[in-house]
């Protein structure tokens, strides 16, 4: 009955289709108006109150109209007379919903909500029956009835469904035919169609034993994890780009691979949850640091969209990331939609605004920034593969060996050191400074100039000579020279200098001196961080912060020691750049000084008797001594080279974002979600209040505490959420249909008891995901036909009773995988960085910072599974998008399922599918036997796993023949068709025939049967 009840609620949505269904199918609507005899609050009453009344008379304390709340029995059933338990006719509520008086009627006209006759009757019956309330079902403890008595979870599933069907007088659909069944099983558990030998085995012996073996085979296949990841990555909104503004790439594919591996290893779900929410706070047994795997998993907390847009305010974006995270955590792990509580207490569920901010406060310890630097999302770690890990070890071993060699060498050389010291003392009296003037009054003559070398005379004069370079701008501006014919050779003590005068009325925000030793990655910065080149949080050779801007209104000498920007002796400098951000600056005398004498410290050490030198003095002298040895220099060079090789190799290793816990920032409730309003109460981490409180003593609660609470066996939401979603994957709909919301505005489960049974079974198994799925797919219910009988269509159009299986279009990734698999092009390799299938050129033209051109992979990565496709949040691959893959900006628990012309265009014309068709055609010609007929049969069976009937056979044969004729007459057309894609076509085969079979293959890849899971 409540199935029909739902129908009514759905029909209250607007839309063309509605008026249509009412006029054509009015009888159905009438049918649904009948009222259940014994009213159950959660099933019958709550949906009505929640949808029609709670917006004004519900949990949101800010807007309780007329002081009446209907969500709490004590407040509704009282002296006010709104509800008189047992006496509907005396209850004001009933009077108000029944009245014709437009001023009094509830819901009021301005709410645009109305109650149907059936809904009014439900409320009446409920009050007459005593107005009994129940807590919302999803917050009630899970019940294990049925599970304890049954032999297995599978038996319990069938028992409950069969009992219900017999109660409702509905016949279950017959068992699906073996081909349908094995295709369903294979798609559901691996995301790919079954292999022909498995189909043959099962069709020849469709026994429970073989079926059960197939289940195990599929669950143990590495494809299983890839298939499950498709769904999980939707939930956690995994993508390869940052989402906001320039939508730049961000490296987090190791997280994706972690998910695949977790499902393949059958990691218990509670462990899976803990590692993602708090992996950085965990450690494996007998260790005190998190494992690499745990850190990678903790990247979950960093999968939110981020920005690097100029002019963004960090505080605003921290608030945005905060809210994003709360929405995602509550949806992914608790099946709850807390988003509304960002601005006001939830109108339909007992989540308060405080709950929203308190849940977010668990994540206040994450190291993160509101606005990130270019292409940088710290903290990140490199995640080496096994092979890469071994290579790193080889580098380390080599380094150790070189260092040992060096040490031996130095010990040998020490014998000669006293003689060297004596010679040093002799020349200690001759220190010299050699100065090279690069720019005075004119630019260097032997270099290439860029930018505006605007020499002017000023009122305040030059520092040297008469002219200086004036530069003025609103933003970034520079002038520079490069390509000096006689480059500057850096010596032991080399210092660059330039004189600058900053206009006190309009000083720049920042100035930079930059040096070219082959590249420009040597910088020293004065003033703010306004210039982004090389900018990092820490100072380093390519962004050495010198502190404040120099004093304005006078000439100041800026100095840059070669060492501080990473320049070693003998490095050569061919250019210097003068850069400022905004303002007015005057640049003058620029040059370089080489001090060829020894430093004070060296001379002091040298004059100290050797037995009185301290350690640093000894080291200083030895370093200088060894520096003059060619052998030691060669050894040092080798070490540096080895270190550079290691660093370069390490930088090529894929990185991933991780969680890192730092001092938690203060979290306040933001009034109406306004990030600029600091007046709200400070909150500490806490779980939603109506679900309890966590007792841990005085310390602040952590993400691990949150994870532990989520994973408690008796958490009413966690197991229900996950079990319901696993059911949805296996049937196309959940036991509770709203897989994204188990809360008050979600749907009431069609099998509340069964959902509990499956959930409790899941927990008792030790949160064993594979066992849960195995229990479901072994059931009779799973194995039924998805073709509805006429009776089922009319009595249960939406299949809420699961009297039959579901049927639906494959997920976008699987549509792709199926074509590649059937064609033989599929390259199966688990994990790795995301890949780039063919994509229409210019698709990223609307992106900027930086502008970019998509490059399709030219190697075997072109043929990887869809789950590995580069996920550009703002411009998702058009094939994936057409087939309803989500942008992954927010949590998606149920993808839309559409059936559109754009999908047809993809399957007909996308080069991926054309190349797949040609490759499939080659298989047809090689493997399909000698005759056209045998080839047709082989082709059809390869695509859809079953034999072609004569009509289908004839249709395909006709396509072959007519295309053969065309391509025989137009060989150019044939070769055009065959030359698409990276792989070359098989030149041994007759081109016209291959093109004709390609046409047949195109038909097959476009069939409903090929892309549908029945």
């Amino acid at each position, binding site marked *: 009955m409540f199935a029909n009840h739902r129908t009514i609620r759905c029909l209250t949505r607007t839309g063309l289709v509605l008026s*249509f269904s009412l006029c054509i199918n009015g009888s159905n609507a009438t049918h649904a108006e009948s009222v259940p005899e014994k009213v159950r609050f959660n099933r019958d009453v709550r949906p009505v109150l929640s949808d029609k009344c709670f917006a004004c008379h519900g949990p949101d304390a800010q807007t309780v109209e007329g002081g009446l709340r209907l969500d709490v029995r004590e407040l509704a059933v009282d002296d006010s007379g709104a509800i008189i338990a047992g006496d509907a006719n005396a209850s004001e509520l009933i009077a108000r919903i029944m009245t014709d008086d437009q001023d009094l009627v509830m819901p009021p006209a301005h709410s*645009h909500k109305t109650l149907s006759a059936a809904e009014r009757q439900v409320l009446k019956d409920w009050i007459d029956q005593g107005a009994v309330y129940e807590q919302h079902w999803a917050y009630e403890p899970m019940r294990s009835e049925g599970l304890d008595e049954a032999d297995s979870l599978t038996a319990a599933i069938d028992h409950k469904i069969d009992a219900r069907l017999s109660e409702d007088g509905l016949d279950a659909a017959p068992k699906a035919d073996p081909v349908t069944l094995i295709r369903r099983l294979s798609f559901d558990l691996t995301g790919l169609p079954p292999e022909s030998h498995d189909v043959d085995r099962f069709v020849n012996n469709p026994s429970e034993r073989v079926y059960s073996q197939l289940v195990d085979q599929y669950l143990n296949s590495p494809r299983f994890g890839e298939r499950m990841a498709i769904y999980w990555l939707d939930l956690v909104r995994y993508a390869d780009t940052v989402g906001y503004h320039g939508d730049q790439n961000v490296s987090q594919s190791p997280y994706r691979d972690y998910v695949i591996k977790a499902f393949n290893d059958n990691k218990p779900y509670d462990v899976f949850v803990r590692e993602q929410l708090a992996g950085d706070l965990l450690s494996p047994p007998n260790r005190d640091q998190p494992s690499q795997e745990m850190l990678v998993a903790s990247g979950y907390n960093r999968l939110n969209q981020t920005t690097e847009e100029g*002019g963004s*305010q960090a505080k605003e974006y921290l608030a945005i990331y905060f809210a994003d995270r709360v929405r995602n955590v509550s949806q992914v792990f608790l099946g709850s939609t807390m988003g509304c509580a960002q601005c006001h207490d939830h109108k339909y569920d007992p989540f308060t605004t405080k709950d929203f901010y308190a849940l977010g406060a668990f994540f206040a310890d994450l190291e993160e920034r509101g606005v990130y630097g270019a292409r940088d999302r710290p903290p990140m770690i490199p995640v080496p593969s096994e092979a890469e890990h071994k290579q790193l070890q080889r580098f380390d071993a080599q380094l150790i060996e070189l260092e040992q060699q060096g040490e031996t060498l130095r010990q040998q050389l020490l014998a000669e050191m006293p003689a060297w010291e004596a010679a040093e003392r002799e020349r200690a009296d001759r220190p010299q400074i050699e100065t090279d003037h690069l720019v005075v009054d004119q630019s260097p003559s032997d270099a290439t100039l860029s930018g505006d070398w605007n020499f002017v005379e000023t009122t305040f004069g030059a520092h040297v000579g008469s002219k200086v370079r004036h530069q003025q701008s609103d933003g970034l501006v520079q002038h520079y020279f490069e390509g000096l014919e006689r480059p500057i050779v850096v010596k032991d003590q080399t210092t660059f200098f330039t004189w600058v005068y900053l206009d006190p009325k309009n000083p720049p925000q920042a100035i930079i001196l930059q040096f070219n030793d082959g590249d420009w990655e040597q910088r020293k910065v004065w003033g703010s961080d306004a210039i982004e080149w090389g900018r990092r949080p820490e100072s380093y050779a390519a962004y050495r912060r010198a502190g404040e801007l120099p004093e304005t209104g006078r000439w100041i000498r800026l100095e840059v020691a070669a060492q501080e920007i990473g320049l070693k002796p003998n490095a050569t400098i061919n250019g210097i750049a003068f850069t400022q951000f905004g303002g007015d600056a005057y640049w003058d005398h620029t040059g370089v000084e080489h001090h060829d004498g020894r430093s004070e410290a060296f001379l002091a050490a040298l004059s100290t008797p050797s037995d009185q030198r301290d350690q640093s003095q000894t080291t200083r002298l030895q370093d200088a001594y060894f520096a003059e040895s060619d052998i030691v220099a060669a050894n040092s060079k080798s070490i540096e080279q080895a270190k550079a090789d290691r660093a370069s190799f390490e930088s090529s290793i894929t990185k991933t974002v991780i969680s890192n816990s730092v001092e938690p920032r203060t979290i306040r409730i933001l009034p109406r979600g306004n990030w600029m309003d600091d007046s709200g109460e400070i909150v500490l981490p806490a779980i939603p209040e109506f679900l309890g409180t966590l007792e841990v003593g005085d310390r602040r609660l952590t993400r691990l505490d949150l994870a532990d609470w989520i994973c408690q066996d008796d958490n009413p939401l966690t197991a229900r959420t996950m079990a319901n979603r696993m059911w949805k994957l296996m049937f196309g709909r959940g036991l509770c249909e709203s897989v994204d919301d188990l809360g008050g505005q979600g749907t009431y489960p069609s099998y509340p008891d069964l959902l509990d049974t499956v959930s409790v079974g899941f927990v008792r198994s030790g949160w064993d995901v594979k066992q849960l799925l195995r229990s479901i797919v072994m059931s009779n219910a799973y194995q039924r036909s998805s073709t509805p009988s006429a009776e089922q269509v009319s009595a249960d159009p939406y299949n809420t009773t699961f009297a039959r299986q579901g049927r639906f279009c494959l997920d976008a990734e699987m549509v792709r995988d199926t074509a590649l698999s059937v064609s033989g092009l599929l390259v199966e390799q688990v994990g790795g960085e995301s890949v780039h299938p063919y994509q229409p050129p210019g698709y990223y033209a609307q992106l900027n910072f930086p502008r970019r051109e998509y490059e399709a992979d030219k190697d075997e990565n072109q043929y990887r599974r869809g789950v590995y496709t580069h996920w550009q949040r703002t411009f998702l691959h058009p094939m994936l998008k057409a087939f309803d893959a989500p*942008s992954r900006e927010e949590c998606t628990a149920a993808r839309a399922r559409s059936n559109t012309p754009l999908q047809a265009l993809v399957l007909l*014309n996308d080069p991926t599918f054309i190349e797949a068709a040609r490759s499939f055609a080659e298989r047809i010609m090689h493997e399909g036997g000698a005759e056209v007929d045998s080839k047709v049969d082989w082709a059809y069976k390869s695509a859809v796993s079953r034999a072609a009937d004569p009509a289908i056979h004839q249709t395909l044969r006709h396509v072959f023949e007519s295309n053969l004729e065309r391509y025989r007459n137009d060989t150019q057309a044939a070769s055009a068709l065959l030359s698409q894609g990276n792989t070359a076509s098989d030149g041994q085969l007759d081109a016209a025939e291959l093109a004709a079979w390609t046409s047949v293959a195109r038909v097959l890849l476009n069939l409903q049967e090929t892309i549908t899971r029945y």
Partner: protein
Amino acid sequence: MNDHHTYLARRTFLRRTGLGSVALSSLLQNSLRADTIAATPITTGQRHPAKVKRVIHLCMAGGPSHLETFDYKPVLEKLDGQAMPASVTAGQPIAQLQGQELKIMGPQHRFAPRGESGLMVSDVFPHISGLADQMCVIKSMYTEQINHDPAHTFFNTGTAISGRPSMGAWVMYGLGAETENLPGFIVLTSEGGGQSQPISSRQWHSGFLPSRFQGVQMYASGNPVHYVGNPAGVNRSQQREIIDAVATINARRNQERQDPEVVTRLAAYEMAFRMQASVPELTDMSSETQATIDRYGCVPGDGSFASNCLLARRLAERGVRFIQLYHRGWDHHGGVKQGVETTAKLVDQATAALVNDLKQRGMLDDTLIIWGGEFGRTPMAQGSGRDHHIKGFSMWMAGGGVKGGLSYGATDEFGYNAVENKVHVRDFHATMLHLLGIDHQRLTYKFQGLDFRLTGVEEAHVVRDVLA
């Protein structure tokens, strides 16, 4: 949940006619059209006659300066170079001028009254000035997002949270399209004249609405619509044959499966096949007269804003419901004087040509033209430019149901805060939907347990004073 109801409708319909849902919606559209476009799909009561059938949104991406275009502020001229009163700016959100001295900059272009209405328009728009008596300029717009990406998202979806449907998708959901050969919501882009800020496809996404309502982007080079061209070496009759064979085998298999999706799929393939012809026909502008081309001042098909305007007219003629033209060129942080002039030159003539062309063809009366960006720019200088500004900016509308020659609302003397007849983005949405015959409070979609609407949960009002 919503699948149900389409499912039910489709089932019942299929039993009678054997057609799919695409055909279904177009059939419904046709019958509604016969009935007059006043019939909106709102379930009960409160229907009102639609003033317009379609929307052409000329989105001036980057944030055009209202102070150099439509909002004349003589006070700024007088106080040029002086400090902005702190009382105006204290505690207000600010973008790139964070932490800097805030100095007033006067209007960089001359303003003059135009047309009989005397609407003030600056010199950068000689052609648009000619539309003065048809335009309704709203000078009191304000928004909530100060950076480009979220501000566009806010303007298109009513929220800065990603994943919600765009206004074009909402309109498609409410009204469907009037064409069986083209998508009902089409997006064109161009750039030039300023820093090209990125534009996300989120701006025309269907969000949680079914994806058939999403905007389809058209391109000036390559296939105008993704995958609309046959594979090399396949001609149209072969493509027809492939589709026929697919249909035949699907139908054959469906004798056993009885899957209504098969029928929908058939209709989808038929529309795809029609699109393969109608899209090239649409983008082949050789039938346009030289006089028309000259009026727009374009090289047809070159991807410029002017060419896109001409294409927009062709889309409108063919029954496309929601047409969005983005021109990415209005982000003038520096050199606002020259920048506005340059970008204006790229859009001025074609904008006017589009409005006049529609008028000449009798289509302006049932078209709503919207012109404006995601926000305005500060009265304060950022060097020689202006920073992002959200507390007051200008947009204009023209076409059916809108009062011409009207200046509505006002900002304060600095052009900073909208102070008179303030129009929030949500109000703008409500007004646009109203003109399409839709009550914004009743255009809802259930998602995650809530009835979502374009105008969200905060109050939104139809701006009745601008309605003709």
